[in-house]
């Protein structure tokens, strides 16, 4: 098979402040026709810049060196007018956020027709026929009736299908997909990946798939190319990569992916270097467990002795199978009861104005759940399932019907003032760490605030307590002098956790605490939360759409769908033996990394009898 796309020695630098900084260094890769190559990396790795530079959609001031061959054309020799001919005709592109990429004021048909006619010309009628054909091809049901709908009338997954239809309008030889499923629910993401897989086979199209999600790569990609801090670290056939990762970074990355039934996620110490301060030798060396002095001398040449090529002087032997991949054995412990949720319902008044009566929208219906002291209850569901609403009800942030009892005390029977005091016992960590810290308050004061607001007598000075809390979440107390804008996303989330701990809660509601973070950052945070629970006896309610994350953390899991509890059971049992069809689908769509973890965790014998299907 010949290569659709061949990137040779591609380097990209972008203006930062008054200078240009190299973001991507000496990238070489090849996408063959009909093949899917996954370009994998964490944020800051340069993967998106690599994809954008193929289409030359770079910010002004960017400099590009090297060659990008699309078929027989070297794209780097083309001027802007030439590139416009290439974009859409020879290579199509699908972006992460379809709502932002589609024009909200034009019908989807008009946008697909435009993509077609820019290159093909022809009559409006022919273009409309093509749009209809494409919508059918990407699996939009009843396409003829949807042609004149606007993007907002489609769901997230359907919008992404429309985007794909636009990218396919001129039957390109190459499809570039930049995180096309990030932000979609797992079941929808699975369908989109299946669609891309089918289209590439039917059209013999090469796909350059940019992602951070290794489990998707394992399932769909033929080849993989891993970037770290702007350099290639390992590349080759995906099958070989997952069977025997050879670069220490690949191994660490695989070890930090949360997946069903895992004992311990791997921590990668340290942080990704900024582009200005990248080490001269192997860029991963400062964080590498296998580091030797030679690693810091120069960028290592690729080692070709294994199934994949790794830019490492001392790659892992092919037969290495580190013990971090061992499955978990969770024992079923009986937790003393702490929180009782009974017949909880939440209704929102939707619509309605001065004259028309509001129609209630039922976000939660008759939820009955319990949480034991020291237990982690996972709440899994897709967007719109009501899982965040459940968290907010427990936190007493919203009105609800039904009862929530903390240690036998009913919140709904408390006076307003009592409720304000009792609420402190349940704290919260939100999804977006930047949003949960006031950008204008110093971190020291953010963490001190719960202590200052508390009436409890202080045995130690506040400053010392803050320093202890910061160290407890793995941060240097000196970070307290900064504003939230001056720390990374992972650090900000640690600060949010420290702030929650400062209130000395008994329960913490974790609302998607890691879903906006990188894989390795997520692993460190999940481990931190796990350790904190062991040290302090905290209980968690962990809300997430990611079954693997929940299964890693939770003792018990409740599955929510359309505002109702579908199934509750011990974590191990629910994964090994899901009862409802919905749970089965969710478990099947969860990240697994099957080639590494062949088996599900052992199921405790008494786990099966505890299953309740509601």
């Amino acid at each position, binding site marked *: 098979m010949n290569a659709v796309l061949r990137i040779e*020695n591609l380097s990209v630098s972008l203006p930062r402040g008054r200078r240009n900084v190299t973001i991507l260094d000496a990238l070489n890769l090849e996408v063959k026709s009909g093949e899917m190559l996954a370009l994998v990396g964490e944020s800051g790795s340069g993967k998106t810049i690599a994809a954008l530079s193929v289409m030359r959609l770079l910010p002004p001031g960017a400099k590009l060196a090297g060659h990008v061959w699309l078929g027989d054309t070297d794209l780097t020799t083309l001027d802007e007018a030439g590139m416009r001919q290439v974009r859409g005709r020879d290579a199509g592109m699908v972006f992460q956020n379809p709502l932002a990429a589609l024009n909200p004021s034009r019908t989807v048909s008009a946008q697909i027709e435009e993509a077609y006619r820019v290159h093909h010309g022809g009559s409006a009628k022919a273009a409309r026929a093509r749009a209809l054909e494409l919508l059918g091809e990407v699996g939009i049901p009843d396409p003829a009736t949807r042609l004149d709908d606007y993007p907002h009338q489609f769901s997230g997954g359907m919008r992404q299908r429309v985007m794909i239809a636009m990218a396919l309008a001129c039957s390109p030889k190459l499809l570039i997909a930049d995180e096309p499923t990030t932000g979609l629910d797992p079941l929808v993401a699975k369908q989109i990946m299946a669609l891309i897989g089918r289209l590439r086979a039917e059209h013999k199209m090469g796909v350059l798939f940019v992602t951070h999600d290794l489990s998707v790569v394992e399932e769909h990609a033929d080849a993989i190319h891993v970037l770290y801090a702007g350099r290639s670290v390992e590349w080759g056939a995906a099958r070989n990569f997952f069977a025997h990762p050879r670069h220490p970074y690949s191994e660490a990355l695989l070890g930090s992916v949360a997946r069903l039934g895992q004992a311990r996620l791997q921590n990668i110490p340290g942080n990704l270097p900024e582009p200005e301060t990248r080490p001269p030798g192997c860029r991963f060396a400062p964080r590498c467990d296998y580091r030797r002095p030679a690693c810091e001398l120069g960028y290592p040449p690729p080692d070709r002795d294994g199934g994949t090529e790794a830019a490492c002087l001392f790659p892992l032997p092919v037969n290495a199978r580190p013990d971090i991949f061992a499955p978990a054995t969770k024992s079923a412990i009986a937790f003393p009861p702490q929180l009782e949720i009974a017949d909880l319902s939440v209704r929102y008044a939707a619509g309605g104005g001065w004259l028309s009566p509001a129609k209630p929208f039922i976000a939660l219906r008759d939820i009955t759940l319990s949480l034991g002291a020291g237990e982690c209850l996972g709440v899994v569901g897709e967007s719109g399932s009501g899982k965040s609403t459940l968290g907010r009800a427990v936190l007493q942030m919203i009105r609800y019907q039904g009862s929530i009892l903390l240690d036998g005390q009913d919140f709904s029977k408390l006076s307003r003032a009592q409720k304000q005091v009792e609420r402190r016992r349940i704290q919260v960590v939100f999804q977006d760490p930047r949003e949960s810290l006031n950008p204008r308050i110093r971190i020291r004061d953010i963490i001190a605030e719960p202590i200052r607001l508390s009436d409890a007598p202080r045995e130690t000075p506040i400053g010392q307590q803050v320093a202890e809390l910061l160290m407890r979440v793995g941060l240097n107390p000196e970070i307290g002098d900064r504003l939230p804008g001056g720390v990374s996303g992972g650090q900000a989330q640690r600060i949010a956790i420290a702030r929650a701990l400062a209130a000395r809660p008994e329960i913490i509601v974790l609302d998607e605490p890691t879903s906006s973070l990188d894989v390795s950052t997520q692993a460190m945070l999940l481990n931190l939360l796990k350790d904190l629970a062991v040290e302090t006896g905290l209980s968690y309610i962990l809300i997430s759409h990611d079954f693997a994350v929940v299964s890693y953390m939770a003792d018990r899991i409740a599955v929510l769908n359309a505002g109702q509890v579908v199934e509750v059971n011990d974590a191990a049992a629910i994964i090994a033996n899901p009862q409802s069809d919905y749970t089965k689908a969710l478990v099947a769509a969860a990240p697994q990394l099957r080639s590494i973890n062949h088996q599900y965790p052992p199921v405790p014998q008494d786990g099966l009898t505890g299953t309740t299907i509601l």
Partner: protein
Amino acid sequence: MSDQLTMTAAPGAPAARLGRMFTWASERGTLITGLTLSGFILFIGFVGPFIYPVDPFAIHPNHALEAPSLAFPFGTDELGRDELALLLSGGLATLIVSLPAAVLAFVVGVAYGLASGLGPAWLDRLLMRLLDAVLALPSLIILLFFASLVTLNNTSLILLLGFISWPSLARLVRNETMAQKGRDFVLATEQLGAGRFYIARVHLLRVMAPILVVNGTFMIGDAIFALSALSFLGLGVQPPQVSWGSLLETGLDIIALNPWWMILPPGIVVFAALLAASLTGQGLLARWGNRR
């Protein structure tokens, strides 16, 4: 490998660099010019009378309506009073009314907006409809109406001006409060048992600080303008005390005699004061505007 590839550190063509420098200079320039002008205005009003300690109300009948000379640097008015002394004294009179008025309007606007944004829904509706009613009437008309009802002195003028120019800030603060109060850090603070006053004081005001400072600056300009307009119409600072607005008015009364030295200086300082407030506000906006 392309390790030999050299990336030159010149971001863009010279034209682009020039453009960036211009942007930088104009952003900084606005703020610097604004602050310099503000300092100048404050200097005239508060320090000027001491540097030029001439009695503004001393009458020199044989020097009436004289053009600028060494004895009277800014000339004299129709009663033979020293124009420069009048201008400096009028500056003090203008500033000691309009600055407190701006502060009052600022406090009222912020309090009203916070109450509307944080209070129960019915209070919000009530306050906002009230605000609509106030905004529906031209403020100068209201100002003239009330000014004709009360005895005019510094206190009443401060109250009058203060209570007239808060509505736009109140609406801004209310909308900003609405936008901010649902953010996660506010919810997390509520979870700590913090009350509304605490959240408004510690969290909301701090997040809104840039907007407040910028709009507070604009309000000072508005107050100076309103007081000058009122004085020009004879309803502001009352004789024998003079203000920039009333000085302008006396000059215009006898414009047939072309007393340019009576008209230009007060006109220029009012203009400079408005420009100072506007440039400072815009300069701050450019620095803070796109930061959250």
